[in-house]
């Protein structure tokens, strides 16, 4: 083997990436040629020094800063999870109000479509609310008016009117700040009407019959604009007539 050939293969030789035959030839040449031996030692020294990274010192702040970031991420994740759980529970609760009245009338297939988990969540998280009560009881059979669909939560939240079932439900959103204040006052003044705040922007009013609902509805109409527009702060009022 000539020195040129040795030097060409030297890198792969120190990496142990040559087949055995070439490797043996390299070893033999190295024993006979001091120049190539020194070249080998030089490359090996560089390789060993690069491999020996123990001398690189980790900056002092590194670990504490990292753990701080991780702690922060964990907190954000936890608070997000709680937020989603609340939103999910609320959405599920609204959905079950709509569907709950129909539960007794469902056939087996329809019942199988009902999500089990949200129902359990409601029992755990919101068992004390009138909403949960409405979902589980007070449900006469009205099978013929049930609208079958998938993605119930989404659709219910975007288009309440599609679920024209046992209860009468009116979604009402005020359009101005002034109307919002008026509506809040009206809600406080209401007598003999069961109502609850579902979240910061949704209030649900429950009536025993249509007449009671219409009375309140007319009262609201006189005081507050009905037209729905985009407003930064608005309140959605669900007027719900529960089945007797």
């Amino acid at each position, binding site marked *: 083997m000539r020195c040129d050939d040795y030097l060409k293969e030297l890198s792969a030789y120190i990496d142990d*990436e040559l087949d055995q035959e070439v490797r043996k030839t390299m070893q033999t040449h190295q024993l006979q040629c001091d120049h190539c031996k020194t070249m080998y*030692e030089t490359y090996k020294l*560089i390789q060993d020094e690069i491999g*020996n990274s123990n001398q690189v010192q980790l900056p002092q702040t590194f670990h504490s800063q990292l753990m701080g970031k991780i702690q922060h*991420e964990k907190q954000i994740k936890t608070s997000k999870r709680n937020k989603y759980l609340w939103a999910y529970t609320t959405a599920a609760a609204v959905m079950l109000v709509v569907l709950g009245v129909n539960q007794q009338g469902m056939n087996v297939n329809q019942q199988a479509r009902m999500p089990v988990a949200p129902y359990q969540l409601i029992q755990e998280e919101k068992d004390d609310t009138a909403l949960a009560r409405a979902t589980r009881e007070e449900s006469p059979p009205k099978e013929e008016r049930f609208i079958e669909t998938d993605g119930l939560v989404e659709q219910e939240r975007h288009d309440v009117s599609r679920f024209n079932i046992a209860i009468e439900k009116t979604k009402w959103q005020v359009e101005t700040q002034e109307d919002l204040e008026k509506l809040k006052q009206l809600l406080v003044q209401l007598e003999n009407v069961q109502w609850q705040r579902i979240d910061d922007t949704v209030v649900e009013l429950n009536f025993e019959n249509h007449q009671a609902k219409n009375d309140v509805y007319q009262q609201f109409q006189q005081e507050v604009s009905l037209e729905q527009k985009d407003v930064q702060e608005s309140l959605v009022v669900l007027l719900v007539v529960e089945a007797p």
Partner: protein
Amino acid sequence: MEEHIEKKLIQQAQKGSHQAFEKLIVEHEQRIYAICLRMLGNEQEAYDAAQEVCLKVWRQLPQFESHSKLSTWLYRITTNQCLDHLRKQKRKQEVSFYKYIGEEEREATYEETTENPIGTYIEEVALQDVIAQALSQLKSEYRILIVLRDMQGYSYEQISNHLDLPVGTVKSRISRARQKLKKILMQNKEPYSSFFRQIGKREDGL
């Protein structure tokens, strides 16, 4: 760290225990930082990249499957992070240079042992600095190959798969990278003089 302890800590960390994660990462963060420093050649960039790597390890740990080795997995994340960084950097046409580690920092962290006498330590640290600086002068495509091979110990085939290059190209590029690195180190000027003298002595002795 013993394998069964590591496995247990991984399981706890996967469930969200940051105490378990801390015990795991403390074993590897120095090496993660060292790889980033050698690959990127700049302390600040290496610091940021290594932090990002450790955060990715934390975020992706639930997906980690315990039949593979943790160290292999997280050094792969490290390499990918550095490669991404270098690709972005290349687009920006930025050039960065390695900065020396402060002398005080080195002395403050040194602990003398009988196996590691102080003279050898200083010599090694000096040589490490010189090599690190030379490495930072290499084009990034050469530097990556040297770090993957010499620091992380990947085979040519593994590097070929990792960088999507033919094995022959990996072999020839590593060879060229070594030649260039040696050329930089053999300059008779600061900071390379110490390396030049060390090798020069051997060559004189021929």
